[in-house]
C-alpha cells in the first residue's frame, strides 16, 4: 500500500481554488480536507505556496521509439514528462516506421506501460504517413487510440482528409492536423517575411498554416466530424478556430510554448536549435498567442517535444532537422505567459483538463489500460496530480535534463515556476526536477 499526504497547497479545481490537504492511497484520492490525518507510513509532500491540480497531459510528444532511440525512448521521454509535471503523454506516430498498425501501436503502449506515467498513442491517419491510403483506424481505436495524425506533415490531399474524417466520425476518434500546406513550405526553414529575406533563408509562410486551417474547418463543416489543430502559430489561425467554434463546429486547437515564448528574431543567430515546424513566427504572432491563452481561446498547451541527436543540430540551419525539446519547461513557459497574476484555473485548463478532454483520458471517457486524467482533485479519483510552484526560479541546463536529447532553445534561461512533485497513478515519481 502506497500512501501520500500533500499538505498546505492550494487545490485548483475547474471552478474554485481551495486550501486543503490531499491524501492518496493505493492510486486514488482518499481524502481532501483541512489538516487531514496521515495514514501510517504515509509520505508527506510539502505543497505550501504551491498549486495542487491534475497532472499535466501532453497532446504532442515525440518519443522517437521505434527508430531513433539514440535521441529519445519511451522510457527517457516519460522521465522528461514526469519532471515536467506530466502524468500522461500522447506519443506521436512519426516514428520509423510510423505507428500505423496494431503491432506498432501495441509495441509503444507496452513500452509505455513500463513507465511511471500513462503513455497514450496517436496513430497515423494514413499508411506510412504518406497521405494516400487510410491506416487501420478502427483496429487501432480498439487498442485505445483516440487521436490520429500524420504529424510532421499535413494530410495534403483534401479528398484523403475528407475520407479520413468520414471514416473516423463513427469511431468516436479525433483527427489532428499538422497545418502546413506542403507546396508552400517546400525547402523552407523559418518564418517567411522580411527577416527571412534578409537572412537568405527560404520561408515557410503563415499562409501555409492558415490555408490548411481554413480547408479543414470547411471539411469539418461538410463531414460533421471533429478536428484538432496541432501547434497553431499565428494570430489568424487562432481567430479562424475561434470563429469556427462559435459556429458550433467541433474543432479544438493547441499551441506550443516555443511559439508564444520565442519569435523569429531568434533565427538571426542561424542556430538550428531555433528551427521548428511550423516556424517561430513574428513577435506580433507570439504576442497574439499569449493573448489568446489569457482569453481562453486555446484548448491546450502542447509541447511538440521533439528530441534530436546533438550532431544533427550542428548542421547548417537549412540542413538541420526541425524541432525542439519541450516537456521539461512547457509548464514554466505557460505560467510565465499567463502572467504573475494569472488564474491557476486557466493554467490547469491548458495543461491538464483541456488536453485530457481532447485525448479522451478523463474519468468519463472509455480508456483502455490507462488511468483517468484532468480531474478535480476529488475523493475517489485516480491520483494523477502535480504540485506546481508558480514562484520558484530555476535555470534550464541542457546537460541536466531527463531527456536523452539536449536540443532545448532555453539552455541557460532562467524560468519561473516548476513542478515540485509529480504523482502519477498514486506514486510520487518526480520531485524538483529529479526522478524519485
Amino acid at each position, binding site marked *: 500500500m502506497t500512501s501520500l499526504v500533500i499538505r498546505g497547497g492550494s487545490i485548483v479545481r475547474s471552478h474554485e481554488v481551495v486550501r486543503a490537504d490531499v491524501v492518496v492511497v493505493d492510486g486514488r484520492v482518499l481524502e481532501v480536507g483541512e489538516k487531514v490525518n496521515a495514514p501510517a507510513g504515509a509520505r508527506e509532500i510539502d505543497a505550501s505556496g504551491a498549486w495542487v491540480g491534475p497532472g499535466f497531459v501532453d497532446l504532442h510528444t515525440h518519443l522517437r521509439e521505434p527508430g531513433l532511440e539514440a535521441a529519445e525512448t519511451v522510457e527517457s521521454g516519460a522521465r522528461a514528462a514526469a519532471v515536467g509535471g506530466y502524468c500522461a503523454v500522447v506519443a506521436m506516430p512519426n516514428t520509423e516506421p510510423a505507428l500505423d498498425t496494431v503491432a506498432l501501436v501495441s509495441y509503444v503502449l507496452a513500452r509505455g506501460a513500463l513507465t511511471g506515467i500513462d503513455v497514450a498513442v496517436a496513430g497515423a491517419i494514413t499508411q506510412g504517413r504518406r497521405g494516400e491510403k487510410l491506416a487501420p483506424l478502427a483496429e487501432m481505436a480498439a487498442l485505445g487510440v483516440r487521436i490520429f495524425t500524420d504529424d510532421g506533415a499535413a494530410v495534403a490531399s483534401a479528398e484523403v482528409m475528407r475520407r479520413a474524417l468520414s471514416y473516423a466520425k463513427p469511431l468516436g476518434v479525433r483527427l489532428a492536423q499538422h497545418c502546413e500546406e506542403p507546396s508552400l513550405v517546400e525547402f523552407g526553414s523559418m518564418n*517567411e517575411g522580411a527577416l*527571412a529575406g534578409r537572412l537568405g533563408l527560404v520561408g515557410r509562410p503563415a499562409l501555409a498554416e492558415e490555408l490548411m486551417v481554413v480547408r479543414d474547418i470547411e471539411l469539418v463543416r461538410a463531414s460533421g466530424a471533429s478536428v484538432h489543430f496541432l501547434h497553431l502559430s499565428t494570430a489568424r489561425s487562432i481567430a479562424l478556430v475561434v470563429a469556427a467554434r462559435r459556429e458550433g463546429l467541433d474543432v479544438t486547437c493547441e499551441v506550443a510554448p516555443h511559439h508564444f515564448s520565442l519569435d523569429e528574431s531568434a533565427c538571426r*543567430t542561424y542556430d538550428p536549435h531555433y528551427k521548428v515546424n511550423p516556424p517561430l513566427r513574428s513577435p506580433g504572432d507570439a504576442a497574439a498567442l499569449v493573448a489568446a491563452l489569457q482569453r481562453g481561446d486555446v484548448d491546450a498547451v502542447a509541447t511538440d517535444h521533439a528530441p534530436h541527436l546533438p550532431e544533427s543540430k550542428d548542421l547548417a540551419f537549412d540542413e538541420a532537422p526541425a524541432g525542439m525539446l519541450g516537456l521539461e519547461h512547457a509548464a514554466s513557459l505557460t505560467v510565465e505567459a499567463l502572467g504573475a497574476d494569472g488564474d491557476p484555473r486557466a493554467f490547469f485548463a491548458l495543461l491538464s483538463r483541456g488536453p485530457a478532454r481532447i485525448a479522451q483520458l478523463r474519468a468519463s471517457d472509455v480508456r483502455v489500460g490507462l488511468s483517468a486524467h484532468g480531474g478535480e482533485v476529488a475523493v475517489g479519483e485516480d491520483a494523477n496530480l502535480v504540485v506546481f510552484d508558480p514562484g520558484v526560479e530555476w535555470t534550464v541546463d541542457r546537460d541536466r535534463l531527463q531527456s536523452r536529447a539536449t536540443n532545448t532553445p532555453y539552455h541557460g534561461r532562467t524560468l519561473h515556476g516548476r513542478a515540485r512533485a509529480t504523482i502519477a497513478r498514486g506514486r510520487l515519481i518526480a520531485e524538483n526536477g529529479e526522478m524519485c
Partner: protein
Amino acid sequence: MITTLRGKNLLDLGELSREAILEVLDTADSFVEVNRRVVKKVPALKGRVVASLFFEESTRTRLSFETAAKRLSADVLSLAVASSSVKKGESLRDTIATIDALGIDAVVMRHRSSGAAVQVARYVPHVRVINAGDGLHQHPTQGLLDAYTLRQVLAERRGERARDTGAELFDGLRVLIVGDVRHSRVARSDVEAYVALGATVTLAAPGTLLPDGVREWPVSVAGDFDDALGDADVVGVLRLQHERGTGAFVPSLSEFTRTHGLTIERAARLSPSTIIMHPGPMNRGVEIDARVADSSAAVITRQVANGVPVRMAVLYLSVAGREESR
C-alpha cells in the same frame, strides 16, 4: 555595428559601418601597388595560416582569395570539402573542428547554406572567419570589391585618387540592380555596401525574383525596368541562378531576357557614362548580352582584378589586426 574590420570577422556587410567599409577600400588601394610589382608579395601575414574551405564549388572567388592570402605571405590550407562532407554525415561543427585542430588563424569559407559562416564563427571564436558566400545570404567581399571598383572608375573620370574621395563619389549615385535578387547573396551585399556609402539603390526584377519583405529594404523597387534604366548611373546585372531552381520562378529564360535582360537594344539607350557591372559567372545571352558584357561601359574584368587587392585588405585587417587589437 563594426567600425573597423581590424581583428573582426567578416560575415555580413550589414554589420559594417561606412568607416569600416572605407577602411577596406583604402587599404585595398595600398595593395594595388603590390600587385603591379615583379615580386608580388608582402610579409604582412607571414607565418599565419589561412584555411580556404569551400563547401560549394567556386573558381574565381577561391582563386582570388588564395592569391590574396599568398601575396600577404600567409600559408594557405586549401581544402576541397564540396558538399560531400554532409552526405558522408559529417556536421559543420566536426568539419571546422578538424581543420581548427591543424592550427589556423583564419578561415575563408563558402557554403551553400545561408548562415553557415555565422555558425562557424560561433564554433571557433578564436579563428577569424571570412564569409566567401553563404547560401542566399551574403557575399561580403563581392560587395566590397564592387564598391571599390565603382569608386575607382568614378575617381579616374574625375582625375582624382580614389582614396582621396572617401565616400563622396557615392553621394547621390543612382545604382540599379537588376535580375534574380531573390536568390542573390551578391545583391544583398551590394545593397548593404552601396547604401552605407550613400548611394541610392533601385531594384528591378520579375515579381517572383524579389526577396520577401523587400519593402523593408533601404531601396526602391522599379515598376518598369526600361523606365528605371534611364535614371541609372550604374547598372548591376545579377546572374540568373538556374542552379537554385530559379527556372520555376520565370516562365522561360527567353521571357526573362525579354523583360529583364540587359540586351543590346537596352544598352544602346543608356547614357554613355553608365557603368555596367556583373559579379560573374555570366549567363551570356540570358541576363546580359555578350556584346554588352564586352563593351567599354562594362567593368566586369576590373571587378575580377580588384578581387585580389580587396581580399588582401580584408585578410590583412581581419587577421593581422587581431594581434594589433590585443
